[in-house]
């Protein structure tokens, strides 16, 4: 009798596990298509942007409607872990077919052989590519990417709070101080290790804007006097309490859109995002008022995953994206950013956004936020620099010691 009960219990347990297994089997992915249509995934963190994401998805829909053999769908990968996630997937021979990378991750991926050469997929000579940003897409004569978005950094300011924009760093600092009252802050920038990539983008403008550089092309120059000067200017603003300390970019950008932040250094892509958050905000743009007219640029290439089984079809998508009418549509979605090819801004666009020429005028003096000569090592160097700069901001060490330490650690990394 006891044995019968035990067997009955065992049978019940087996049935329950079988039921669970059946349920779980039904939860898997469907794998792919069997109707002759190649389905590709395109991973880009911009798909998550409230202002641009939905428009980019519609742009993809236009491609899908124009094709009967290839379909591209947006792969949602959260921005905070985008590079790490996609590189992990690609490194293991999987991941999205098309990827919109930021430059540091693009360099790391192409150096690791994770990015497919594009020369056979796309004849770049057929297109009027923007030379200055496009030069960074080719490594040792091999094309690894096509510019998806090129966006120069400028100073955004709330025109209701600041009728005349500052033209020197001293004016910039004093404006920030005079505006900071109650729940309004004069300025905002990223200052926490949690936003490593963002801090790197922000301090890039201070380093290069004060005549510094991360390297001379052969050696790292992280602790050079010019870098120290630029980062001291950054730290002075932090110490002056003119920024909402602790607020992340998402928060202080919402604050800017609500008129609670006076100034922000950001790239052209921010125009659409700001309008998406508050269409009534009266803001304007001017060049960053630092001593040297040199600033960062967001270069975001689109690449084909070396592990993709649909490389040719991915090439079809890139060629579609490079067609003039689709470039114009893409540029309108991306706001004040440039795209891969030379496009004309329409009078209507210029009327709606009169400051667009400010961004265009900065192209020749803008640099991608990578360490020249050490491109593939940029993510590692970035981590070291940001950790040390944040430590200095938080008063754990003085800035000079922090930069000396960063120089030493980064040099060991690239040795």
């Amino acid at each position: 009798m006891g044995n019968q009960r035990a067997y009955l219990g065992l049978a019940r347990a087996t049935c329950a596990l079988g039921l669970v297994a059946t349920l779980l089997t039904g939860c898997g992915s469907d794998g792919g298509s069997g109707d002759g249509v190649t389905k590709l995934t395109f991973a880009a963190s911009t798909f998550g942007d409230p202002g641009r994401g939905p428009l980019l998805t519609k742009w993809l829909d236009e491609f899908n409607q124009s094709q009967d053999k290839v379909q591209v769908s947006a792969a949602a990968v959260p921005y905070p872990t985008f590079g790490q996630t996609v590189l992990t997937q690609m490194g293991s021979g999987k991941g999205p077919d098309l990827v919109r990378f930021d430059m540091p991750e693009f360099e790391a991926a192409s150096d690791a052989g994770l990015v497919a050469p594009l020369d056979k997929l796309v004849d770049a000579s057929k297109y009027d590519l923007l030379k200055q940003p496009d030069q960074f897409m080719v490594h040792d004569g091999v094309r690894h990417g096509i510019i998806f978005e090129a966006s120069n950094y400028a100073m955004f300011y709330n025109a209701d709070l600041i009728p005349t924009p500052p033209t020197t760093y001293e004016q910039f600092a004093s404006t920030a101080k005079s505006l900071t009252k109650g729940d309004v802050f004069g300025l905002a920038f990223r200052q926490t290790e949690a936003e490593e990539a963002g801090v790197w983008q922000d301090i890039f403008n201070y380093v290069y804007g004060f005549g510094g550089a991360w390297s001379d092309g052969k050696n790292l120059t992280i602790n050079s006097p010019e870098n120290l000067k630029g980062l001291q200017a950054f730290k002075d603003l932090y110490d002056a309490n003119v920024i909402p300390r602790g607020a992340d970019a998402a928060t202080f950008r919402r604050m800017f859109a609500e008129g609670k932040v006076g100034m922000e250094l950001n790239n052209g892509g921010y125009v659409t995002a700001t309008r998406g958050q508050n269409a009534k905000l009266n803001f304007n743009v001017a060049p960053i008022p630092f001593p040297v007219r040199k600033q960062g640029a967001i270069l975001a290439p689109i690449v084909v995953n070396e592990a993709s089984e649909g490389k040719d079809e991915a090439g079809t998508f890139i060629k579609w994206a490079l067609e003039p009418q689709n470039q114009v549509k893409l540029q309108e979605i991306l706001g004040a950013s440039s795209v891969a090819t030379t496009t004309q801004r329409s009078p209507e666009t210029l009327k709606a956004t009169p400051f667009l020429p400010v961004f265009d005028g900065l192209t020749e003096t803008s640099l991608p936020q990578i360490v020249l000569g050490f491109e593939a090592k940029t993510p590692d160097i970035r981590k070291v620099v940001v950790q040390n700069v944040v430590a200095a901001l938080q008063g754990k060490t003085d800035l000079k010691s922090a930069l000396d330490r960063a120089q030493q650690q980064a040099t060991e990394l690239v040795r």
Partner: protein
Amino acid sequence: MRRFRFGVTARIVAVLVVLGVAVFPLYWMFVTALSSNSDLFADKPRLTPDLGQFGVFVDALAEGKAGGWLLNSLIIAVGTMVLSVGLGIPLGYALSRFSFWGKALVTVVLLFTQMLPEALMVVPLFALFRRFELLDSLTGLILVNSAFVLPIVALILKGAIDGIPKELEEAARADGARPFTTLTRINVPLIAPSIAATAVIAFFHAWNEYVFAVTFIFNPDLQPASVGIANFIGELGTPIQTVMAVAFLFTLPAVAFYLLVQKYVVSGMTAGAVKG
């Protein structure tokens, strides 16, 4: 009489304070979700929800795929809970009752796995799961979550079984019961509170897990809510109200589950504290 009233009042105040501390984060999420842009960064924050903004919940469910994310999270969490508890009971029983070569080593290894961060295991597990075609499936996430939570489940249940007098099993065996029957008929009912406690641990681990979910899933329709919420964090902006609305919805099933089993969990935590 006055002392009695003071005591009651003090207790009520204490209960309200504790309740406030526990419930306030949830309430604040709800208020933030139902705040206008201008209220969000106002000098004096809004303390009550603006019900006129309720559309944010509708949008999150209709356009933001929040319903699908929550369903995926539920499947992953329940699957992990069933698998890890289902395997943890016999494992805990074996560790408690049987002597075998390397038993101490197995226990140490189980403890050791709890010290490894998930991020360290992502790359090797990704390669392994790719080989077994477990990527991009909820089954894969259930397996990986179970692997991480099983050691702690087994060790807790081992401790609970340790507290059951062996004489009970010996009596059952004298009546002809086999080890499986002894486990299911004698031990399981007695350690039910501990099983409930481990079920909660497994459920919450899988419910909140992010690193494996974001790396192993490519299909947006299979993403759990932990990843879905992060998708709102864009490069240039984050719709805070939408994030809070989805986060609020994400919290409710977990809270409901905990309320369902909390009385068992409490008794599970104290089980074996006093031995008669």
